[in-house]
């Protein structure tokens, strides 16, 4: 380990520690194997390449992790209620594109044209950001309403959305990508570094911590776990399971909106095909983190770490010089082995 890398990692860690020192977060780390895996990977990373521990590389990992991680947080809630959301990737593309379209129409009432040279967005940033979150949320709620009220199986509802939203996105944008190069300040979310830590990662941290606190320590959390664990028991206890099943979809939608803002802020562009496949990565992360598909079982903390693990794994593979498809092989193996290990774990527990 050379001096440069040592400095970078301690810089990053001390920054993280400074920000999180008030939280019990550090206590939890003590008893989790998933953390050991993470550490193992970090060691593996440093052995693989000298640049692994460079500040730049770690920050890169952090930015990618924040995008997938935020999606996975929403997905965790949905899976905990025994449902699934396959529309998040499409929601990411659609919500931003729709927001831009809405802003364009709104602003043109005031005679302002937000789009120049057919592809460059040059104003209306705040409105676009607000509407992205609003639209992504609404899509999420729509998923929830269709699944719960019309009783369409979650897989089917969100699968249909997956296709429909991409189609809509194409129609709205006429297939052209849009660029934010001239939109002042838009790239803040995806590129700004604060105390050596990317701000988007800080947001991930905050969302993660808030999520963990709510899920584990409040009545809201119990309601969600009960709805997924045994809906009948939840209903008999007076919990409005329908409501909570819809709310978790709303949260998943919110996460998609937030994630797309980070993504597009970083790349300074948005296009119809962006975030393709992200829904599957989010499910993979949730599942690797220990949440099962049966509903009612899982921890947000596991998801939180699993996102980091996945980010590190992908990074190591890239540094090794292997092409992207190797990532898929490894991720596939990890998903199956992780779930196998968890199921074995639960079976052993049940016998004692």
């Amino acid at each position, binding site marked *: 380990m050379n001096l440069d890398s040592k400095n970078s990692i301690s810089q990053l860690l001390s920054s993280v520690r400074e920000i999180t020192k008030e939280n019990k977060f550090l206590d939890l780390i003590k008893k989790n194997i998933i953390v050991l895996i993470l550490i193992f990977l970090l060691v593996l990373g440093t052995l693989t390449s000298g640049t692994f521990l460079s500040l730049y590389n770690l920050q890169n990992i952090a930015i990618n992790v924040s995008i997938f991680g935020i999606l996975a947080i929403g997905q965790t809630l949905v899976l905990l209620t025994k449902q699934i959301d396959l529309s998040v990737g499409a929601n990411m593309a659609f919500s931003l594109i729709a927001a831009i379209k809405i802003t364009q129409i709104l602003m043109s009432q005031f005679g302002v044209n937000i789009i120049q040279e057919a592809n460059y967005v040059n104003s209306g940033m705040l409105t676009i950001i607000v509407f992205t979150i609003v639209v992504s949320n609404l899509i999420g709620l729509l998923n929830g309403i269709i699944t719960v009220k019309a009783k369409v199986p979650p897989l089917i509802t969100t699968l249909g959305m997956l296709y429909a939203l991409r189609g809509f996105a194409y129609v709205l944008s006429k297939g052209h990508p849009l660029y934010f190069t001239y939109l002042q300040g838009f790239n803040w979310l995806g590129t700004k570094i604060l105390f050596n830590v990317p701000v988007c990662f800080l947001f991930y941290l905050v969302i993660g911590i808030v999520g963990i606190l709510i899920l584990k320590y409040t009545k809201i959390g119990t309601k969600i776990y*009960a709805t997924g664990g*045994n809906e009948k028991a939840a209903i008999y206890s007076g*919990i409005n399971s329908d409501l909570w099943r819809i709310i978790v979809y709303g949260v998943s939608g919110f996460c998609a909106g937030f994630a797309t803002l980070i993504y597009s802020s970083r790349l300074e562009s948005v296009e119809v095909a962006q975030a393709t496949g992200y829904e599957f990565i989010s499910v993979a992360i949730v599942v690797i983190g220990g949440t099962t598909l049966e509903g009612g*079982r899982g921890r947000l903390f596991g998801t939180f770490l699993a996102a980091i693990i996945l980010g590190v794994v992908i990074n190591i593979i890239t540094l090794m010089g292997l092409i992207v498809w190797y990532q898929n092989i490894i991720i596939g193996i990890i998903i199956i082995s992780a779930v196998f290990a968890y199921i074995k774990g639960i079976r052993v527990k049940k016998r004692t």
Partner: protein
Amino acid sequence: MNNEPLLKLVEISKTFPGVKALREVDFSVNYGEVVSVVGQNGAGKSTLVNIIGGIYTPDNGNIFINGQKVRISNPGIAEKLGIGMVHQEPTLVPMMTVSANLFLNKEHLKNIFFLNFEKMKEESNKILDVLGFNINPETLVENLSLVERGVVETAKAMLLNPRILIFDEVTATLGISEVERLFKLIQELKSKGIAIIFISHRLQETIQISDRIVVLRDGKKVGEFNRKDKVSLKGIINLMIGEKVEERKERAKEIYIYDEPILTVKNLSKIGYFKDINFNLYKGEILGFAGLKGAGITELLKTLYGTLIKDFGDVYLKNKKVIIQKPRDAIKNGIGMITNDRQKEGLALIRSIEENITISSLDYLTNMFNFLKPNILRRSAERYISTLDIKTTSLKQEALYLSGGNQQKVVLAKLLLRGLDVIIVDEPTKGIDVKTKVVMHNLLIELKEKGKGIIVASPEIPELLSICDRILIVASGRIVKEVKRSTNLFNESNILETMYS
């Protein structure tokens, strides 16, 4: 306190698709009173208490609490009205702790947002102590035994400080000492002025503990007994079964029974379901199994067929020991079964009748290259369609479109084509009209005459009485009595008495 009873139901009716579950039932219970509701399966007991508990809403009739009309449209409202219910099957979240389940949706809070786990754990310990059970509140419910889950369920209902507590068939899985503890608890609650509504199949105990017994039959209230009246088990049972108007054709065909046992079962046990089952099935005999739901009969039969696996014991076919671990083994050894869910477990509904009949015999119906011979398949199917008189337009029709009775015939044909020695039938005429019932019974008797050994399980005692040569009564997983046709104990009243005591 006015003269109105604590809870009063007036002319409550409830219909489910195709079934009139309750018909203008009046019911009341007072402070500190223990009222039991008894009746056969399907009489309407669970429906009645589910209406009180807010799980169903009545189609007609009114409910009054202390003279005030109320509408109990969901369990939450029932709770608010002080009605607590301990369900037949524990309704708990398996992956959450006992403590979390006890306080589900009623959690103690530390400040506005955060749960107070300590306090909930403390109170959980307290209430579990009161019930006399040593259960760690931090255990996950999925790691508890069935009995412990029932205790948690009861504790949960009691935490609400209800003024009316309903026990819906909770004693089905309890042992003697646990039932004693439960009854002691009920006495304590009674002395505190809590009204108890109790549903149980153990009539002896019910008589012991109740102030009043209400008897339901086919959705109607047919009788009510007070503690002061001399209540006899026979009296209650007679009310439960009522007058039988139909004539039963007795079939005394014992002469066809051979001395050789076709099937011998020794010490067969499956932990949690049945224990030490010993019996012989003779060639040419129809052996009946009678018992309440949960007695273990279906599980016993499924173990003989291989869909469940035994823990101890042996099964002998024609005096040769056989190991049956899956239905394939059973069939290879000559044992066939028609389960009580013919649509899910006996037929491939979207396939044709021909396919359904021939599916278990395919290895016999191939030519030397192992290809299926369509002519043979067709003729085999046709043979049974005519012998069993299966009403269908063609053998290519999908099984889905047949009536219940004809579907049952198809399943039977499947077994017959295979040429099995032992045929097990669980609820042979479930959901089948009266006329076809008789046809089914005649078919089974014909098989008996041909020398097959037949085991029949049915909740309808008259059915067993009309076709069986012998009936074994099963309770709590054990064979408690054997009744032979030749004896004068071979009647409904007697059998029910054994089943319910």
